């Protein structure tokens, strides 16, 4: 073995290369200070939504890109997260600190995610996607029926006498203003992305990679496939739940705010943005929340055009760039870096001998 070989075991620390750390700091600086300095109130509201929904796309990206599971229940899980945050808020007489509220919301939504993930132990592919879509329909119907808690009694916590159709959780004391709460959201989003990165770089990430390649691969490595599939569903749902809690505090929620069909659109943008990269979740959130506004406000085009555009985008992504738009952006960044001398040109990879792969099966006994 060469003396310079890196024999460190992979972890979040080994994954934190200087390039990644610089990219993280730059993105955080732009999000925390650059964007609030230049955008109007309207666009700040849109950026808040993008930040919150980047958690939703992150959760689905984990399932699709890391484990190979297609779920169509992510948007109702956001609604469930909002419901849990409101219910816990009123249950404890509005005394639970916001970070604790988000933590409880994440745990409760994670448990709901495990329940939704149970069919994944028996189903996969299109069948599992259909079952999760049915679960999404059930959650949405239930929500329309019971509505978001508004301080009423009983299990559902809804009082018809004080119904307004709109509910919200109070923002934390340190971030009551719109820009302050946007920054607070960016910090929570960064923490959630770190949580996801920690999973991916560690034991769960390797188990999920094995599962994504083939279930037999995972089993032959000793992976408890039941545990790690449900773990993925729990983590994905917990992250969506936290997004729900943030949205409940940021803009407030109404019962018709989380339609089931948006889960399909969400899957499309996750594939378009790049399901195999954490940065892809941010690109996907841009497509989901900012792009429609650009289409409407800047170009004057109907928002309904989005479905067609996303459809074409997904088609081209699957055909030409399975790693999504984020990979194109990465390639573009590298190209600019090389051209400007900031990055060294990549060394040509050693190509495995084609002769090995296409070698005739010598002296094999025929069947």
């Amino acid at each position, binding site marked *: 073995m060469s003396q310079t070989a890196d024999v460190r075991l992979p972890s979040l620390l080994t994954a934190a290369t200087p390039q990644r750390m610089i990219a993280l700091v730059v993105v955080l600086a732009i999000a925390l200070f650059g964007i609030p300095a230049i955008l109007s109130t309207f666009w700040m509201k849109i950026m808040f939504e993008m930040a919150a929904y980047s958690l939703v796309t992150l959760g689905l990206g984990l399932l699709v890109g890391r484990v190979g599971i297609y779920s169509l229940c992510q948007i109702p899980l956001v609604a469930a997260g909002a419901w849990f945050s409101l219910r816990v808020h009123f249950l404890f007489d509005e005394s639970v600190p916001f970070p604790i509220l988000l933590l409880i919301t994440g745990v409760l939504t994670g448990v709901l995610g495990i329940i939704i993930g149970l069919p994944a132990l028996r189903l996969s592919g299109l069948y599992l996607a259909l079952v999760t879509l049915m679960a999404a329909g059930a959650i949405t119907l239930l929500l329309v029926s019971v509505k978001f808690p508004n301080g009423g009694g009983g299990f559902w916590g809804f009082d018809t006498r004080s119904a307004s159709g709109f509910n919200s959780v109070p923002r934390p004391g340190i971030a009551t203003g719109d820009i302050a709460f946007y920054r607070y959201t960016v910090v929570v989003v960064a923490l959630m992305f770190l949580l996801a990165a920690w999973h991916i770089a560690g034991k769960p990430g390797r*188990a999920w990679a094995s599962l994504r390649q083939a279930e037999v691969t995972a089993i032959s490595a000793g992976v408890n496939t039941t545990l790690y599939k449900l773990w993925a569903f729990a983590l994905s749902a917990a992250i969506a739940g936290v997004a729900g809690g943030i949205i409940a505090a940021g803009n407030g929620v109404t019962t018709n705010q989380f339609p089931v069909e948006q889960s399909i659109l969400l899957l499309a943008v996750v594939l378009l943005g790049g399901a195999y990269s954490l940065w892809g979740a941010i690109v996907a959130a841009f497509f989901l929340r900012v792009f429609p506004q650009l289409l409407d406000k800047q170009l004057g085009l109907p928002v309904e055009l989005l479905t067609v555009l996303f459809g074409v985008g997904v088609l081209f992504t699957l055909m030409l760039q399975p790693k999504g738009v984020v990979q194109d952006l990465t390639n573009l960044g590298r190209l600019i870096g090389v051209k400007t001398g900031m990055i060294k040109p990549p060394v040509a990879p050693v190509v495995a001998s084609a002769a090995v792969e296409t070698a005739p099966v010598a002296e094999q006994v025929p069947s």
Partner: protein
Amino acid sequence: MISISSLTVRFGGVVPIDDLNLTLDVGVNGLIGPNGAGKTTFFNVLTGFVKPVQGTVTAFGDDLLAMPHFRRIRWGLRRTFQTEQAVAELTVLENVLTVLEHSGGAKSSRRRDVVDAVEFVGLGDSLQRPVGALGAAERRLVEVARAVVGSPRLVLLDEPAAGLPDEETAALAQVIKEIPARTGALTILVDHDMALVNETCAHVAVLDFGHIIASGPTADVLNDARVMAAYLGEDIDV
């Protein structure tokens, strides 16, 4: 030692393994037979992918069939596949580490154990390379490294030389021969390459239509008339 008794597998009306009885000792044991003889099904039973309708498998005194599949890996079962299954998106190191961390290897010695296993198969310079960037022979060796890492007790190699040229197969044979000495594991090799079987296995069992038709020292078995008939067919009068 592994002892298989009255093992029977049914897929509807098909019986790929029919009342199989076999005892194997520590060392490299060959399991050969024509396609469809039941060799991979036998491996699938040991791994936990297929549930037999009857029979027992006692390995080193433990009832293997009573364990869930992931517990078998912790117990010390390792497996490679006809179509190699090393995870393409992970590095060589991560591939081997995945098996070790899910098979209960001691945390304190993980790095050393992984590096040792990778060096054992001769891929020490490729630790951080993604498996997807490796050639077919190297990917086969990654699977072998996954099989020998930690404390394996029963190593199942399912056609590890399939698709490899002679020189790569010869190198693989040297690695396979050293597995029992390095790990103390009972190794079962399924392969159609008789040169590889002859080179690596002290004992061979022959499976045909779910039955063991011969078992014993390799040279004796390979010259057995029933074995030659099973592989090459029997002359019949037309």
